[in-house]
């Protein structure tokens, strides 16, 4: 399915949900406690930048605002947003989103703007960050109860924990399977499933994931790859790759896509346009809406729910606010080295501080391992698409 097709499909899904009376809370930063919204009886939906959005609105956002928030703002100002019960902005993750939340409240004062502020953790030896976030989540929960008169229901929460965990397990399996054998299922298909679930986390999105997982599982069993897949999944979650054993007949080049709030589906669609290459070269992405969300650990039921959700959110790997740069670079190097990666495509959202600050360090780290890199400045509209494709193509050719 084309990128545009996937978008249309998820929008149609959302509309249907709305029609059936569901109340939807949109969120922008991917690491939110989905379980919380579900516990209050809402459907959380990841709101994202879209291609084909006419920009403008220089009376509200300067041109040096990141292309991501400009796109979101334009969608809302153009009337492309669906009716949401509320929209959750993150605090303390990046300056652009921090300020966008404020601008949004003024410009669209009928929208219910919610805020969840994150701690910036640096492997401190205490639990102050977890406690801070847990309290933020609890206060948000209180606000949801008061504003919408929908209390936090423990049985909803328990069911949500299981439900979201199934998503994590299933998509982690798919990601890991592709590390062992990228042709086992296409990258576009995996990220389509992730995208669909994050947009409309319903039973039907989940059953699609489950069906795909069981199909891939069968293939893996036939090929005798199931154990290796499981080892990869465990290794990525723990950061310990000692037990990973990759097949001898890996197809090269093996590419990883690094970056932040860049749309995995857009990358897949770019790769599919490149003559003589297929997206099966993409072994893994390290993107916020892909890897970093998929490999987040689920809340444990034995903990207090707010602490459990905070721990879960803070376990998202590779987020610039969650770990120090050297930690992230070492984690990435381990991954590249142990998963036998030859090339790294570093995507940078235009005017995104976190992406643009990190890119030189990623390049340097990859260079130390002789992994070749290319940096791609992107915006959600994929303006300059032709040139980007040519650059990817030349890059892939250097890897052959």
């Amino acid at each position: 399915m084309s990128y545009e097709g996937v978008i249309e499909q998820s929008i149609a899904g959302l509309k249907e949900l709305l029609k059936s009376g569901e109340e939807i809370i949109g969120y922008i930063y991917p690491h939110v406690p989905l379980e919380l919204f579900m516990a209050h009886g809402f459907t959380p939906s990841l709101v994202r930048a879209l291609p084909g959005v006419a920009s403008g609105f220089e009376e509200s956002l300067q041109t040096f605002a990141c292309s991501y928030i400009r796109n979101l703002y334009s969608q809302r100002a153009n009337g492309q947003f669906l009716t949401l019960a509320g929209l959750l902005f993150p605090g303390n993750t990046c300056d652009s989103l921090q300020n966008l939340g404020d601008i949004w409240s003024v410009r669209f004062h009928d929208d219910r703007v919610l805020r969840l502020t994150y701690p910036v953790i640096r492997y401190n030896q205490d639990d102050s960050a977890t406690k801070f976030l847990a309290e933020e989540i609890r206060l948000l929960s209180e606000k949801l109860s008061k504003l919408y008169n929908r209390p936090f229901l423990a049985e909803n929460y328990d069911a949500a924990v299981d439900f979201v965990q199934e998503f994590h397990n299933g998509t982690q399996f798919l990601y890991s399977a592709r590390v062992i054998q990228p042709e086992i299922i296409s990258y576009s298909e995996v990220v389509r499933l992730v995208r669909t679930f994050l947009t409309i986390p319903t039973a039907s999105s989940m059953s699609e994931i489950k069906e795909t997982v069981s199909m891939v599982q069968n293939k893996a069993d036939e090929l005798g790859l199931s154990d290796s897949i499981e080892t990869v999944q465990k290794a990525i979650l723990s950061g310990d790759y000692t037990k990973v054993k990759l097949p001898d007949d890996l197809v090269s080049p093996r590419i990883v896509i690094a970056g932040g709030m860049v749309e995995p589906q857009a990358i897949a669609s770019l790769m599919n346009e490149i003559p003589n290459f297929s997206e099966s070269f993409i072994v893994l992405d390290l993107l916020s809406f892909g890897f970093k969300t998929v490999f987040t650990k689920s809340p444990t039921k034995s903990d207090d729910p707010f602490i459990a959700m905070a721990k879960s959110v803070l376990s998202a790997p590779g987020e610039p606010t969650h770990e120090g740069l050297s930690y992230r670079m070492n984690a990435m190097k381990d991954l590249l080295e142990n998963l036998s990666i030859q090339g790294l495509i570093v995507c940078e959202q235009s005017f995104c501080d976190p992406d643009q600050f990190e890119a030189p360090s990623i390049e340097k780290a990859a260079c130390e391992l002789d992994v070749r890199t290319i940096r791609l400045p992107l915006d959600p509209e994929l303006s300059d698409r032709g040139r980007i494709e040519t650059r990817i193509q030349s890059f892939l050719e250097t890897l052959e």
Partner: protein
Amino acid sequence: MNQERASEEKPYRRLETQALLQQIALRHGLEAMEASENGHLAWVTSGFPVEIPIALDMGVVYPEQAGAIVGAQKIGPEVCGYAENLGYSQDLCSYARASIGSTEKPDEVPIGSLPTPQLLLACNNICGTVLRWYDAISEMTGAPVFLLDTPPIDKVQLPHNQAYVRRGVERLIEFIESHFNRSLEDGRIREVAELSSRATKLWIRALEACKNKPSPLNCADRFLTMAPVVSSRGTEHCVEFYESFVAEVEERVKNGIGAIRDERVRLLWDNIPPWHTLRFFNILASRGVVFPADTYTHAWTGNMVGTDTLSIIDEVVETYSKVYLNMGLDAKVDKMCQLIKDYDLDGFVMFSVRSCKRYSLGQLVSKELVTERTGVPGVIIEGDMVDSRVYNEAQIETRVDALLEMLM
């Protein structure tokens, strides 16, 4: 004689204390060099609770000021270029680029490159960029980064936010103590807090003197004289400097002497100034425009009043969490309106700094809100504080002219 006349003809007056500022800077530079050689120099961000490292006898320098110096010397594009050659995008904060560039090529930046740090102290109460910038410097120099995380607050600081920042300050103390094998003495922190408070109070006195007409200080004066209160509050020489400074300012007020010779329009300045084109203020001075207040230098007015270590830590938490840039848009608008009222200002100029998203995104909205609430007009000009490549002087002039036409 000739010289005197020439200076007499200038539309603005130079502060005598500026000469002292150079001495302070020189002294500060030498001390920093010595601290670096002795292995205990910390680089600090402008919003960092510098009282703590000072009380722990660390040397401190302030890279944003070094960036300002690079800008003022008009070598911003070149020095930022060294960082760009390393792969740092031209879209990134130019203080960060100037700092990365001068760390990469210190010999090319004799004034404005800082001695090698042994510790990088970042507080994200001014922006999230500082963390990524200091991480990059850490990668280059090997010095560890300590981040004091101060999550933004809306209007009031909630108890969990307070507790979290408090733990951060405690961890900061533990971190320096263990890394540099020293301990925080109760007497010493009290002394530093007291000195810091004295410097800040003097600074506030100088700022408030600008409510007078004519204003004894213009924007550029405050931007130049703020450096010690940002980086060296808590030291004796900082207090001494502000004593002389305030004496001069109050003398001006007593004698009805203004920062500019013919004050006709009083404006508020928002954001960092264009260091490479400080003559912007002088050119406007010749048209009778003075800036008695600005949001930037008013940000360093938090005051320590603690009397023992515990209460001082509480003060640090409160003061540093509530800095201007760490509050929501409403608080920023409130602050601007208050300044316009208190300083009896006729309008405002907002400098939209491409480098600084935290300070600048939202200005388009605040401009409307401030005018709505105060009735005074404002204008937004765009550029950068260090990187003169993105400063379009002609366009800026046209915009400011349009504002002045309304006011004159």
